[in-house]
């Protein structure tokens, strides 16, 4: 319980720092969301592959570090602004990268 709270705090802050880093360079917050979701998927794949116990703090960190709601909202905004292609590309890239990187992390850690 305390571990979830503490790691949730740092997971969210780490995601926010990624937004800041990307926004200062590219003015494209979607890139940061794609990045945290991809990196989070890679790490959770490695943790599951290494059979870390479910109660370990890293899962609490990753749960807060990655996000689904921001991705959904970004896509809605794209569609609303008429950028259908960009929205579809963004969602597809996030889903595919998340899955592939999970597989990479999982395979490496369970070898």
């Amino acid at each position, binding site marked *: *319980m305390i571990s*979830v*709270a*503490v*790691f*949730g*705090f*740092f*997971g*969210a*802050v780490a*995601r*926010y720092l990624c*937004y800041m880093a990307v926004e200062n360079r590219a003015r494209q917050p979607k890139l940061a969301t794609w990045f*945290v*979701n991809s990196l*989070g*998927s890679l*790490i*959770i*794949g490695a943790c*599951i592959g290494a059979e870390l116990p479910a109660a370990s703090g890293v899962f*609490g960190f*990753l*749960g*807060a*570090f*990655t*996000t*689904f*709601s*921001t*991705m*959904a*909202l970004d*896509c*809605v905004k794209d*569609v609303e602004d008429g950028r259908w292609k960009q929205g579809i590309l963004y*969602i597809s890239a*996030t*889903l595919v990268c*998340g*899955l592939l*990187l*999970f*597989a990479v992390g*999982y395979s490496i850690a369970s070898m």
Partner: protein
Amino acid sequence: MKNILAVGFGGMAGSLLRMAVFQFAGAGLGLWLVNIVGSFAIGIAAARLAKRSAETRLFVSTGLIGSFTSFSAFSADWFRLLETSLITGIIYAFGMTAASIAAAALGLLAGRKGRWND
């Protein structure tokens, strides 16, 4: 510093809420619940909090709702489902994504229409 604390405490609350939903509904169904409810909520927040302070938006949208929903667990569940059945895995991924996008769109509409917060 204020912004970081706003995100952090929001993330703390969002993580605890997500854990409560998982304990109540189980991790599988729980992930559907948090991602759909969270996407609806972030749509409302985007519409209603546009004029609020940066700290308020960071606490609610980036911290609380952003941490309440999760993508890493989604990748893990999707991968496991794909291992057993290709079709089930694909339906799962498209289903949760489409449902969350629809929820965010509805939340945005509801937030713009509602007059319960002005």
